[in-house]
């Protein structure tokens, strides 16, 4: 699966798609492959304040629990509640299965994240 060129990526295998000062956040195809079948996603409330690298939720496969880490500092302004009932969409379409939208408080942070080529190198 290709990694969208417009996204930024973290070494913890999250992606962020920026639109202005807002960023949609999800996990990468590599991450979902490593996890296996996703059966549970726990996400924060709207309004939650996050620091870059801070856990904003958990994702569980049949076998294991993993933390979700925020790629940026900011505030949660939207939560994808559809994932509660359809967590398996993270496996089927990881790069469209966004989890939260974060309003960035320091937009400069995103610039230092990995681009698609750098991320591809990291996981190959």
């Amino acid at each position, binding site marked *: 699966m290709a990694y969208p060129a417009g996204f930024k990526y973290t070494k913890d295998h999250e992606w962020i798609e920026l639109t202005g000062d807002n960023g949609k956040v999800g996990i990468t195809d590599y991450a979902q492959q490593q996890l*296996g*079948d996703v*059966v*549970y996603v*726990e996400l924060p409330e709207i309004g939650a304040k996050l620091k870059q690298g801070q856990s904003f939720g*958990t994702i569980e496969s*049949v076998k294991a*629990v993993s933390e979700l880490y925020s790629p940026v500092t900011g505030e949660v302004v939207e939560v994808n509640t559809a994932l509660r009932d359809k967590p398996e969409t993270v*496996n089927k379409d990881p790069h469209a299965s966004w989890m939260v939208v974060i309003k960035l408080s320091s937009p400069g942070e995103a610039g230092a994240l990995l681009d698609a080529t750098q991320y591809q190198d990291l996981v190959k």
Partner: protein
Amino acid sequence: MEQATETPLKKTALNARHRASGAKMVPFSGWDMPVEYSGIVLEHNAVRTRAGVFDVSHMGEIEIAGKDALAAVQRISSNDASKLQVGQAQYSGLLTPQGTFVDDLLVYRLGPAHFLLVVNAGNIAKDYGWMAEQIKGVGDAVAVDSSSRYALIALQGPEAVNVLQPLTGVDLAGMKYYWFGHGEVANVRATVSRTGYTGEDGFEIFVPPQSADKVWQAILESGTAAEVIPCGLGARDTLRLEAGMRLHGNDIDETTTAVEADLNWIVGWKKDDFIGAAALREQKANGAARKIVGFEVLDRGIARHGYDAYVGDVKAGVVTSGTQTPYLKKAIGMAYLPIAHTAPGSEFDVDIRGRRTLARVVPMPFYKRSR
């Protein structure tokens, strides 16, 4: 379950097949094993609705033979092996004098004075040492670790008979649950038993390691129409949990007795003496303080191995197994709780990473096949 990096992992005879087939491999009890092929959910549901094939060659085989073999098995194994006819098998416990589990095992009666004990992969050396020591005084009986002589393939699911029968002259339809027979499978010398660790109908097939790949491929080919798929240890674990089967190292170990594990049915109460008998009889007479239960999580969340259980504000026990089950689509598990809270319907909390989550005791098994 981290492995020491300097210890090379052991490989089953099917290791190359797993790797060539793209299975996801993990270290398990010192072995390099497939955890999943096409995904745990897919594999789990294939076994519930059609059939799946598992490499369980990492399991150990210990044989006990000699004139006094029955007496030796009766001493070390909790169940009553005198009830076994030749060609029959039983589930049992290898217990300490305290009635706790060194291991759990299947006891096969190969001959009047010849038994095959199938034990967990991580316990082979420990079990063999324990058995050899404990049968010393029994008389004419010797224990031999013959694990390297067997590969073990499990074919599990409602289609198992239909898939395996064309490959063997052994009468499978006529074979009762927990019986076995000898013959050939795909022209390979084999022992076939109607046993398994999934809660489905199925077979476990003992073959020489050098022929394991031939048998594995023949089963998959015979199962093409039924869409039989190879499965890994991940699905094996979720399947056995739905079926309410204990896992040694999780649900039973050297700190839990057979009575606490609610496994009274594998204790030969009418036998003379056996290791653990006095402790178990005492506990049965006076009542155990705690017992294992099956539970369902009522709130959102998945309770997992090692999570604490609370009754009110008091830490009352611990979850020993737990997952989101692929077939029943519920978060289920097993936990030890104080005896007063073990009745079906009793509610308690599980501490899921800092959050108290409501759970309810339910009867096991969670899943029982129809027929």
